[in-house]
């Protein structure tokens, strides 16, 4: 039995070794990216591999959650936040380089309703109607698109009525998924996700109703390959990268209305 125990220990150490070493063989550039970038960055990722031959992996989540993880030491090479204040917070926490900060896009907010769903709103305020039994927004506490959605609903005078039937998504991608699967009647999400999602109706929300969603990225230093992070940042801000971002409905720095 003692032999069994030592055999188990050997198995454990081998498993830990292979799990740890295999990852070290082919280091990928690790990008922590706001959930609204899910579709656009997947496409840029393929372009990045073509240009540099380097692998890149994305961890999509709410900007606030990713900033928390970065501050606790998560080994990312680049942080693409959906809101510039979170990029600043990651810099203050010592996880990312202040000098590398750049604005790369401004996000647009839309209402997404499923085709074949009970109703499609003509204005944001219509979400107060009973036809919309449940409305999803991202959690305003840590997701910039959720914060903007709440603000827009407040300024449109619909928050009082909508607040009772709100469902919070952990991030904006999950928020859209609630509507896609028909579990809520409408979702307030990022245009960048809506354009890549079939089977829905999109109502743009007047940007004057909320503070601008200025998205910023910063190169981070606790990952294995900050230079890779820098290279991906350069791709996002290159002519090619901007073309992709524009296709996904982002407004770009220097060409905003």
């Amino acid at each position, binding site marked *: *039995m*003692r032999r069994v*125990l030592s055999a*188990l*220990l050997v*198995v*454990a150490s081998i*498993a*830990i070794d*292979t*799990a*740890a070493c295999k*990852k070290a063989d082919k280091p*990928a550039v*690790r990008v922590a990216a706001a959930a609204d970038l*899910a579709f656009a960055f997947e496409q840029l990722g393929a372009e990045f591999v073509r240009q540099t031959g380097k*692998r890149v*992996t*994305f*961890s*999509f*989540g709410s900007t606030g959650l990713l900033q928390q*993880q970065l501050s*606790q*030491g*998560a*080994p*990312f090479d680049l942080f693409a936040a959906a809101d510039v204040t979170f990029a600043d917070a990651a810099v203050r926490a010592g996880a990312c380089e202040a000098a590398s900060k750049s604005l790369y896009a401004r996000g647009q907010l839309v209402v997404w309703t499923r085709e074949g769903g009970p109703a499609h709103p003509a204005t944001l305020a219509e979400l107060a109607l009973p036809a919309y039994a449940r409305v999803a927004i991202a959690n305003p506490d840590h997701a910039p698109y959720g914060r903007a959605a709440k603000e827009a609903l407040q300024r449109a005078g619909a928050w009082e009525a909508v607040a009772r039937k709100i469902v919070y998504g952990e*991030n904006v*991608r*999950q928020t859209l*998924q609630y509507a*896609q*699967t028909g579990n809520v009647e409408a979702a307030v999400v990022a245009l960048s996700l809506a354009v890549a*999602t079939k089977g829905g109706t999109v109502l743009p929300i007047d940007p004057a109703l909320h503070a601008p969603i200025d998205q910023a990225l910063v190169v981070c230093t606790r990952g294995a390959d900050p230079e890779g992070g820098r290279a991906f940042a350069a791709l996002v801000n290159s002519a090619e990268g901007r073309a992709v971002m524009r296709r996904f409905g982002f407004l770009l720095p220097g060409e905003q209305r």
Partner: protein
Amino acid sequence: MQWAPLALSFEVAIAATALAAVMGVLLGALLASRRFPARDLFDALFTLPMVLPPTVLGYYVLVSIGRSSALGRAFERVTGSSIVFTVFGAIVAATVGSLPLVIKSARAALESVDPALVAAARTLGASPLRAFFTVKLPLASSGILAGLMLGFARALGDFGVTLMVAGDIPGETQTASLAIYDAIQSNQDARAAGMIAVLTALGAAVLYAVNRLTRLRNER
């Protein structure tokens, strides 16, 4: 169908089960020994991970092995990498969930061994340690094995603590349960389907095998 997250899940679960086996049998044996003081209190403490929410467990793990903890700092000084947000974090997260299952089963299995058999070994001159390893542990082995299988299945499926402690980094810490969560969020159900099927089949197989093992023990 993605194989990498499943493969990582298996590696993490094997490592976690091995760690839980060593610690769990040791702690189970301590709890099964009548001379151990306040053993029901300790039993409750060791069982806590089964009833606490993953967020609470994740918090404790972050506090105890995070980058600002003594343990986390020592690990980082020696290996150059932190425990959190690496595969080591995923292993710790999976171990936390499976350890109580192993402890519980080991304690029950060891307690069910007829004390007369151990006493007989002692009268024949075996030291307490030798009697434990050559008589008690082999007699309890099917119960312990059942606990290990449950622990393995639990480790394979951990989600909450892994997400908090290891993050969700594809190819590094993205285990199958995290990859499934990601795939469903981005509405790529097809990508999740294979992993869902494998995890479900495996869970059912483990439970079936555990039932068989338990019956084997009861019949003996």
